[in-house]
């Protein structure tokens, strides 16, 4: 029986391991979803099966959107990540272009330096940075994060774009130069339009990295109504050891959706960008 043998093989090599991985990796999300649609009194009754969904409700979502600052946090996060992404893309397109297409003294060293900067974590710099942010009077201002997020977005996006610019044929650009275009014209009219897919994916990655950032947002914009989504959820929905689990989990679901959607389309690019850039550096 060849057919059933193939089927057993598929089951053992593919579907069973896939199921086990799915249970481990997706269980916390399933749990968030279950808790977010549960009425409070059922949640705290430990005699009931915690997985049973009895009389589901959207009350937690209503509470979150109407009685908390959640919509405001979403707005704050949008403003900050959009600003930081725009600034980072501008700088990174220039750096990526220079490192990817120009031959100049110190180019390789600068490339390596940018790569190393990507490894510098916020935990190393947040204390002195808080001093600098306060000296510039940027505490609790959107500008604090718009200016600071590029410190980890620029190295990442430059690295990604450098790899992308390298893949674009040089001959096209040279042809334009021969036809009398200046280098700047060749760049903006020939190379940049070809690089739009790369710029787009760099932009979406910047956006998601900014959306997920926590420490800088906690330290620089962690008070009042200037919180971002991750900071607001963690510090306002847990009050004095009182956990509003239902609305916490609802916030978790709503706060994850934007990045999950963005990444779903781009995750393959992310890895090839990161590793291709890394191995070609």
């Amino acid at each position, binding site marked *: 029986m060849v057919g059933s043998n193939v089927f057993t093989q598929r089951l053992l090599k593919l579907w069973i391991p896939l199921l086990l*991985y*799915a249970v481990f*990796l*997706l269980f*916390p*999300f399933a*749990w*968030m979803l279950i808790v977010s649609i549960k009425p409070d009194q059922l949640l705290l009754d430990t005699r009931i099966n*915690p997985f049973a969904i009895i009389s589901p409700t959207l009350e937690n979502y209503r509470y979150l959107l109407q009685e908390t600052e959640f919509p405001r946090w979403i707005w704050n996060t949008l403003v900050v990540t959009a600003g930081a992404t725009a600034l980072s893309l501008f700088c990174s397109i*220039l750096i990526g*272009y*220079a490192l990817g297409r*120009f031959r*100049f*003294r110190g*180019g390789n060293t600068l490339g390596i330096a940018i790569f190393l*900067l990507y*490894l*510098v*974590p*916020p*935990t*190393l*710099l*947040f*204390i*002195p940075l808080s*001093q*600098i942010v306060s000296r510039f009077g940027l505490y609790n201002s959107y500008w604090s994060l718009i200016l600071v997020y*590029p*410190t980890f977005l*620029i*190295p990442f996006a430059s690295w990604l774009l450098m790899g992308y610019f390298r893949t674009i044929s*040089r001959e096209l650009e*040279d*042809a334009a*130069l*021969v*036809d009398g275009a*200046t*280098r*700047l014209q060749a760049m903006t009219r020939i190379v940049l339009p070809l690089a739009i897919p790369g710029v787009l994916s760099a932009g979406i990655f910047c956006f998601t990295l900014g959306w*997920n950032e926590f420490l800088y947002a906690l*330290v620089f914009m962690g008070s009042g109504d200037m919180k971002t*989504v*991750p900071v607001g*959820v*963690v510090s306002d929905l847990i009050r004095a050891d009182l*956990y509003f689990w239902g609305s*916490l*989990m609802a916030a978790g679901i709503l706060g*994850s959706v934007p*990045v*999950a959607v963005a*990444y*779903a389309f781009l995750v393959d690019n992310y*890895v090839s960008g990161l*590793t291709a850039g*890394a*191995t070609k550096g």
Partner: protein
Amino acid sequence: MSVITAGSRPKAELLQPRGKARFWDREAPLAYLFMIPGLLILLLFMAYPFFLGIYLSMTDKMVGFADFNFVGLENFQLLLRDQIFHRTVANTLIYSFVTVPFKLLLGLGLALVLNQKFHFSRFIRAALLLPWIVPTAISSLAWLMLFDSVLSPISWVLKSWGLIQSNINFFGDRWNAIGSICVANIWRGLPFFAISILAGLQAVSPELHEAAALDGANAFQRFVSVTLPTIRTIILIATLFSIIFTFSDFQLIYVLTKGGPASSTHVFGTYAYQMMGFSALGQAAAVALSMFPFLALFAAILLRFIRADD
């Protein structure tokens, strides 16, 4: 526009009018010009705070006080005698290294599973990457509840199967808490290894596999002699990235334990943050700066692998 496919690069400079236009056509000045906006930001918000951090770590500055003194290495000497700091270093190293083999092996397994052809593979792949994609602060909240001493569904299931008598106290003592933190970290980091390795697997040559199979090599032998050499570099790079990011983590521990119970589960980031909360800025800067030698070492190793691969 005419298309020219000349063998050698045309000397565009010679064809240009003199004067201003020429500057824009020479590569080096333009390259340096292009670096300026980005470098300004990186200098102001990375290089400057780095050196300011070194300076701060040698002062007794407190938050809200203008006056402070230069104290040399006193903050670091204090840390050397600080029990909590010793634990912090140990915790960070345990946290970064103990989780790696799990993430690597489970990630490799997942990559090999996902590398097969099956229905909805794109969708399933994207779904299984979620742990690494969503904000850590948010997914840590899910784990906070999964590890709750009263409401944990894990405890409930184990109890209903008769495997345990009373609820597990996931954050009750240091080792329980570290174990719980490590599980959440493995959960988050596993998909990163999986996609990195999956990308590497695309480069494995099917012809070599077939040739090895014809020579009588079994699946395991083919994996060791054909697949593994191809994905070796990517595994090393993913491992070092993972170590560096886990070493400098903040959110997961901040949300799950805030360094407790009794300051026994701190990592560098959370301990520095707590000291900052006690307004001891100089000391906090010293704690954060203590990460630097470790990070520099990891980065140097990573750089060697990347260069050796050229």
